């Protein structure tokens, strides 16, 4: 039953290889090899000369064992597949609660919360143009709003992932609701997505952030607070997705993400936190492009490098902290407005790459995302795609099924080398924080976006329906988008104002004063004061305005 171990040199290998090269050359001539998005040359064939099983223990090992190339858990998708985390958020807190009730009734054990862009930018409902309210997410500004939004949720049992940029007011509001309901904070589980301020500075100016020094401090305060008071909460998700969406190649995105994680780890260590403990709470979030094998290799290489970095660079001995836990989202950049149903095929291929890459959580895009905020029908197809891949196609039967492929192993190695080169470049620039301050990262991303555009224009990349196989007729009718009802939103604004008027104003002032004072004192934990403020019924916009005043706002750096 046991197979003989592969031994090099293989008798006859050289001769057979030479013969193949001759035959291949006779048909194909000297045509140049293509390069993948990360710039790596892709050969027509890989063999035992590129990778051999002699290196199995050094490069791969077994799942759950260093260097974790094959996966971070012994059972991987056999034991537990991935969480299907579809993002939801729309309209008022009541609208969100109604949608959530449906999802929970369907058996969801984890939920996500996407707030309105006004929340992302640090404003309450009465501070922005009402036309924009609730179009992309739910308008949650107060402990009362959060209580309403989560009315159907048993906080001690359901894990909540929130898109919650600093100063993490949504988590603060959630903790305030838990306090109202008598749920101990130690029972609260979930993740702060969008806590990675560096990714916001360089790639996605969608989120409230403080000037760099303030951002840096609040993130570490948040991590320290969660570690001490909300231990079931993952305070940090390091985001490679924004950088890849903004133009980084897959290898660059992975390298910059690992450099960002290194920066945050160093900042936490400088604060006196123990990496053996806090690194267990680090999670990652990536984009999955349609460059299938490249993405698989990106994830395998990233997982291997992170395990080694944590062990060797930070000297961490806790194997749980070596685990590269990641959520991934299929890339919207690859989707097309032309012939939009084609996007279903694209999303399936992207999702497969993520699954073979060993993800822990997956968001598959709706095919109409490039046209508008996804419709419900399209969101259902996105979920069905995941179910088909898992239950019909049996993609989860075997752990790391592409491990040992000559191509995938060689490519994993080459991607790892590219990723390490990016990390070395950032190290030389003084680390990620310094590289963001100087604009180096922003410049890299802009160049990457332009380089991809040029590849398209040179015909090195094809987009079906756009640069090839175009069709004239556009028979696909997009249903007009549902926009929040103006009257409901006006009622929400009135409700918000009534809430503010009815508060204990002395308590509000006390909490805001304490927050402002803590901003000036490094020895205090600012996030603790944010939580106190949320409990005292201070609003999201008031908290953000106070910190903006005290610590300065993080304007985007415009790089030509």
């Amino acid at each position, binding site marked *: 039953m046991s197979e003989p171990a592969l031994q090099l040199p293989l008798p006859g290998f050289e001769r057979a290889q030479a013969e193949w090269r001759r035959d291949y050359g006779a048909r194909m001539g000297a045509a140049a090899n293509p390069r993948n998005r990360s710039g790596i040359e892709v050969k027509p064939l890989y063999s035992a000369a590129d990778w051999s099983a002699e290196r199995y223990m050094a490069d791969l090992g077994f799942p759950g064992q260093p260097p974790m190339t094959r996966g971070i858990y012994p059972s991987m998708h056999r034991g537990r597949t991935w969480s299907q985390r579809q993002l939801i958020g729309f309209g008022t807190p009541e609208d969100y609660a109604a949608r959530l009730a449906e999802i929970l009734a369907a058996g969801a054990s984890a939920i996500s919360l996407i707030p309105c*862009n006004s929340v*992302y930018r640090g404003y309450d409902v009465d501070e922005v143009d009402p036309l*924009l309210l609730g179009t*992309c997410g739910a308008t949650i500004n107060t402990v009362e709003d959060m209580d309403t939004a989560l009315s159907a949720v048993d906080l001690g049992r359901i894990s909540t992932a929130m898109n919650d940029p600093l100063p993490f007011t949504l988590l603060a509001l959630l903790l305030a609701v838990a306090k109202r309901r008598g749920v101990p904070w130690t029972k609260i589980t979930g993740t702060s997505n969008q806590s990675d301020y560096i990714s916001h500075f360089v790639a996605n100016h*969608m989120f409230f952030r403080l000037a760099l020094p303030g951002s840096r401090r609040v993130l570490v305060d948040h991590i320290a607070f969660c570690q001490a008071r909300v231990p079931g909460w993952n305070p940090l998700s390091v985001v490679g997705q924004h950088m890849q969406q903004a133009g980084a190649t897959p290898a660059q995105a992975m390298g910059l993400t690992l450099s960002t994680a290194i920066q945050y780890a160093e900042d936490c260590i400088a604060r006196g936190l123990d990496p053996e403990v806090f690194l267990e709470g680090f999670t990652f979030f990536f984009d999955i492009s349609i460059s299938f094998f490249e993405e698989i290799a990106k994830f395998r290489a990233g997982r291997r490098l992170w395990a080694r970095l944590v062990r060797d660079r930070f000297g961490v001995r806790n194997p749980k902290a070596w685990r590269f836990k990641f959520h991934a989202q299929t890339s919207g950049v690859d989707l097309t*407005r032309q012939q939009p149903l084609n996007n279903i095929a694209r999303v399936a291929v992207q999702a497969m790459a993520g699954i073979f890459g060993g993800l822990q959580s997956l968001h598959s895009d709706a095919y109409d995302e490039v046209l508008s905020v996804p419709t419900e029908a399209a969101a259902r197809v996105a979920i069905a795609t995941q179910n088909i891949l898992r239950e019909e196609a049996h993609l989860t039967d075997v752990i790391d099924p592409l491990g040992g492929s000559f191509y995938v192993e060689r490519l994993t190695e080459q991607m790892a080398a590219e990723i390490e080169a990016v990390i070395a470049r950032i190290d030389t620039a003084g680390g990620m924080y310094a590289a963001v301050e100087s604009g180096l990262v922003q410049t890299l991303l802009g160049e990457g976006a332009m380089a991809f555009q040029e590849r398209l224009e040179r015909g090195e990349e094809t*987009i079906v329906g756009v640069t090839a196989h175009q069709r004239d007729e556009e028979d696909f009718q997009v249903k007009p*988008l549902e926009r929040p009802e103006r009257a409901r939103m006006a009622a929400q604004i009135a409700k918000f104002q009534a809430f503010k008027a009815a508060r204990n104003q002395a308590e509000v002032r006390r909490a805001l004063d304490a927050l402002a004072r803590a901003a000036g004192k490094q020895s205090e934990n600012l996030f603790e004061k944010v939580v106190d403020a949320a409990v005292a019924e201070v609003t999201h916009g008031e908290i953000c305005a106070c910190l903006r005043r005290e610590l300065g706002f993080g304007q*985007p750096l415009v790089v030509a």
Partner: protein
Amino acid sequence: MTGPTLAQRPPKVLVTKVGLDGHDRGSRLIATFLRDAGMEVVYTAPWQEIATVVKLALEEDVDVIGISSLATDHLLVPQVLSALRDAGLGHVRLVVGGIVPDDEAEELLRAGVARVFHPGSAREDIVAAVRKLAADARAET
């Protein structure tokens, strides 16, 4: 010393974003396309106030304004148009690029937007359209 005449001066375009969202891959790329095509580009960071857009258009004497929108900020564009008209800049052409549902794109065109570019628009088309619109804007001043 004689400078170039008005007609010879390259088209001048303001590339910007209004509202709440800040995804800037699109606006940065478009700014580069137009600059590489020889136009003069005034580029801003995202999140501009409508009043700032009008002020910049006036001070910089632009022919065309390009507003990039990914997450519903295009809903504010009719307000930009009326603010431009109020400032006596009715001749300035306004184009929108990004993720705009069909029915709302039609509304924008009816409100006076010159063109709506959707994802996948070719560089040559964008450059040619902006050049033509800049010439139209000049002809009206």
